[in-house]
Every structure is written in structure tokens, then in C-alpha cells.
């Protein structure tokens, strides 16, 4: 396998909310064990694109999706994979930390339980996931505490632990730090960088510095289209497209 083994991809992806086309024939590929940042001004369709990959649009009635979405060589829609299976293999961390109104332990246990992970393995997996997410030391003494009593940054790391515990192949992150203070943000960025060795990560971000700090590859989207993609350094230092240049220099968005 070459260095740029493609883990997740979309070809000619189009999406409509009712009559409004939000994605206009998007082609993307996310290499394995790399972090890809999706950037672009609000409303450019980056979160919408991200949510296509774990079929989060399934519940909205007036959404229509076209195109080929592939995990390895398996198609995500209308193929052998069910939505449930897709979501289990492609985890997601949301913009607002959304722990269940349960204990810290049960927050992670829930996913293991419904996915039939044997009972005796669960405590170990939970501990491991919390360690991997750099929150173990802060919560190990009180795993039965309601998760909603954690701080915002802790909640978000718990949500990452919840995703990681299921050993997904890809983790999608939708502006995971937008609601956090700089210290929590730094912790989470460090965490994301460490997760890279085991997972393929796609992160939507508004924060140019963040993209430059963590992403290997960056994709710039504008009005539902991909304007430019390439390695992060190139996108920020030597953008080819005029729009990209303006955006990364902070002229709009």
C-alpha cells in the first residue's frame, strides 16, 4: 500500500435541502492516518459534506443526496452497509459537546452495550478510551458523576472518548473546539494529533491557525464547491486560487 492510501472518499457528491442545492458535485478523498481540515466561510457546505459521511442527514426528510461515497471500497449509501454500520465505523464529534444525561461511565458504556461488546471487556475499553482522550486523570475517581457536570472542554474530550471507544476507522469532527476556551482547545488539538496514528481524521474548522497546527491536508470550500485542496502548507503559503488566497489571509468569511 502506498503512503496515500485513501480511506474515505466522495465522488460527484451533490446535496439538496429541498430545492436549494448545497453541495455542487464535490470530489474529495481523505488519506488514511492523516488529518484533513475542511475550511471555508459559513454556509459553504463543509459541515453538510462532513455529515454525509456518517449519514447524519438520513433523519431530515427534505434532504436529497447524490454521488458515490466510499469507505475503502464499500459504498456508504444503498450498498451492503447499513446506516447503523456506517456510523459505527465512522465516528463523529459534534460542535457542541453532547454527552448523554448519564454518568461518565455510562456515556461510553452505551455505545459498547448496543454494539454487543462483551460485558467483561467493557471496563477495560472504557478506561483505555478515557486515557486515550486525556481525560482519565481528571475523572478516574468519580466515573459515576453525571457527565453534564463536567466543564465544556472535559465534556468534549469525553465525547471524543465515546467515539474512540468503538474503534472507528474514521473520526469526523465538526468544529470541535468552537465552543471552547484556548486552554481546552490546545488540549483537544494535542489529543487529535495523537489520535492520528490510529485513525483517519476529518475536521471542519473555522480557525485558520488550528488548521495549520494540526492538518496534513486542507480543503477549501466555497458555495458548495471545492475550490482548492492540497497539503496544508501549500494551501496557506502558496494558494493557487484567488478565492483561497483571500480567505486564508482573512479577507472574507
Amino acid at each position, binding site marked *: 500500500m502506498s503512503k496515500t492510501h485513501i480511506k474515505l472518499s466522495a465522488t460527484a457528491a451533490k446535496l439538496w435541502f429541498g430545492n436549494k442545492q448545497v453541495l455542487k458535485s464535490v470530489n474529495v478523498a481523505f488519506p488514511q492516518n492523516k488529518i484533513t481540515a475542511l475550511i471555508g466561510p459559513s454556509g459553504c457546505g463543509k459541515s453538510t459534506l462532513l455529515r454525509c459521511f456518517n449519514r447524519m442527514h438520513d433523519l431530515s426528510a427534505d434532504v436529497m443526496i447524490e454521488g458515490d461515497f466510499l469507505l475503502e471500497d464499500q459504498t456508504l449509501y444503498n450498498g451492503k452497509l*447499513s446506516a*447503523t*454500520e456506517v456510523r459505527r465505523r465512522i465516528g463523529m464529534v459534534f460542535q457542541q459537546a453532547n454527552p448523554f444525561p448519564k454518568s461518565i461511565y455510562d456515556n461510553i458504556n452505551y455505545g459498547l452495550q*448496543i454494539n*454487543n461488546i462483551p460485558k467483561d471487556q467493557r471496563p477495560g475499553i472504557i478506561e483505555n478510551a478515557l486515557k486515550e482522550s486525556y481525560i482519565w486523570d481528571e475523572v478516574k475517581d468519580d466515573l459515576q458523576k453525571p457527565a453534564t457536570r463536567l466543564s465544556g472542554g472535559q465534556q468534549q474530550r469525553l465525547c471524543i472518548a465515546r467515539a474512540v471507544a468503538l474503534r472507528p476507522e474514521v473520526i469526523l469532527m465538526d468544529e470541535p473546539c468552537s465552543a471552547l476556551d484556548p486552554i481546552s482547545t490546545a488540549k483537544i488539538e494535542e489529543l487529535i494529533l495523537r489520535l492520528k496514528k490510529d485513525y483517519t481524521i476529518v475536521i471542519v474548522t473555522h480557525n485558520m491557525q488550528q488548521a495549520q497546527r494540526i492538518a496534513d491536508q486542507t480543503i477549501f470550500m466555497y458555495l458548495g464547491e471545492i475550490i482548492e485542496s492540497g497539503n496544508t502548507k501549500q494551501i496557506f503559503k502558496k494558494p493557487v486560487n484567488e478565492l483561497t488566497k483571500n480567505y486564508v489571509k482573512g479577507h472574507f468569511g
Partner: protein
Amino acid sequence: MKLALREKTDQTAKLLFRMTGLMVIAILADIFFMLLWNTVAFFLKVKPWDFISGTQWNPSGNPANYGILPLLVSTSLVTLGAMCIAIPLGIGTASFLSDYAGRKLKSVLKPTIEMLASIPSVAIGFLGIVVLGPGIARITGQSNGLNALNGAALLAIMSLPTIITVAQDALEGVPNAYKEASYSVGANRWQTLLQVTIPAASPGILAAVMLGVGRAMGETMTVLMATGNASAFPKGFFHSVRTMTATIAIEMGEVPYQTTHYYALFAIAAVLFLMTLLVNIVGEHFVNKYRKYQAA
């Protein structure tokens, strides 16, 4: 394979939930067809026109008379009386709650109104017999006070909570900017209420009134106990009346199954059903109109 089972459960559950949704339509349709079926059976024996225009309800007479007019007029009279009392009181209270009362007062008044709403109709009817009836009798010099006025007053109490709640929602939904604009041209609170807030909330208030009317028209026990139930053509508020609901309640227990009289009671119910349906649809129309206005 465990996953396949989980997904099967998911599909089955979805189907089950949808079926309960369809069942709701089926229930309403069932009620409608039950009324229609029995009404048609009635109209095979009695001409619709005789039913609608007949001024006498006397099923046990010879010949039997099945004129719905006295019942219809009774129901209308009692409902009208109830609204004459309940609308001013309801709008006044709703205005007080939305524009004058402070948080603390509101937190006391809200449960009070909810408690009033929860009193069973039979208990209100009972008080009509033992308290309001004798009271009315003393004033009018009649032998008892079981008449249209008594029923109207009690129905007013019963429909007040509905009217207050819906009207208050409507008044509180009026954008503050409207009120501020009114204050800024020198209007005081009272003028603002009468000339700006209430007109702006009028669709919602109309909806409140409609829902109150629907509640009053369909109420059974209160009028059954408090209005005396004389089957003569109603002569006014100080006379005993017999509403459509009361007639069904009194006579259904005694009629043999599938006789003309039995079908006649279903025909009354069908008319009542259509009337409440109409009132509710009109009410809903106003609520929707009001929502649109709010969104704009």
C-alpha cells in the same frame, strides 16, 4: 448477525409507530361513520326536513316528534349566555396576566386557573343545583333556579380557563416593539392595551373564544344538572331548557337498541359533532393566521 436483528427491530418499531399514527385517523373516521350510519338510518324513517325544522321534540308522543330546533336553540342560548359572561372576564383576566401582573402574582394565578380547569363538570353541575339554583330562585321568585341562566353561568366558569390561557398566549405574543411604539407617542398602559395590544392579538383572542364556544357547546353534565331539562321550546334565560347533550344523556339510557328514537339521538350527536368541528376549524384557522402574523 446481531446487527441484523437490531435493524429488524428498528424497522418493526417504525412500522408500529406509524400504525398508531394511522389509527388516530381511523378513530376519527370511525366516529364520523358511526354517526353518519345511524343518522342515515334515522333519515330513512324521519324526513331530514322534519328533523331540522321541527319545533317539537317528543319521541314518546303519538305521533312522535323529532324536531331538533328546541334543542338547538337551547344549546345556542346557553352557549351564548356563557360567552357573554366568559368573554369579558376571560379577556380581562388574560390582559391582567399578560400586561399588569408581576412574576410573583402570575405564579399564583396560573395554578389557580389550572385548578379551576380541573374541577370535574359534575361537581360544577352539583353546585348549580345546591348553590346557584337556590340563589337564582330567590332573586326571580321561581320555585327553583334550574334554568338557562344557571347553565350559562356554570358553562362560563368551565370555559374560562381555556379562554384565559389561549388569549393570554395571544396577548403575550404581541411584539414588544408595538407596545413601545405606542408608549413612545404618549399612550398610557390602558390605551396601549385597548388600541394596540388587543387589536394586534385579535386573531388569537378569536381563537380563544372559538375554543371556549366549542367547550361550552359540548359540555354535558353541567347543563344536564343545572338547566332543568324541560323539553318545551325555550323561552328565555329564566326558563328551563334542554340542550342537545342533555337530551342524549337523558334518553340514551332508556331507549331500546335500533329504534327510531335510538337513531334520532345519534342524529342529534351528528349535528353536535358538525357544530363543534366547525367551531374548532374556525378557531384553528385563527390560530394559524395569528402564527403567520407572528412570524412575519
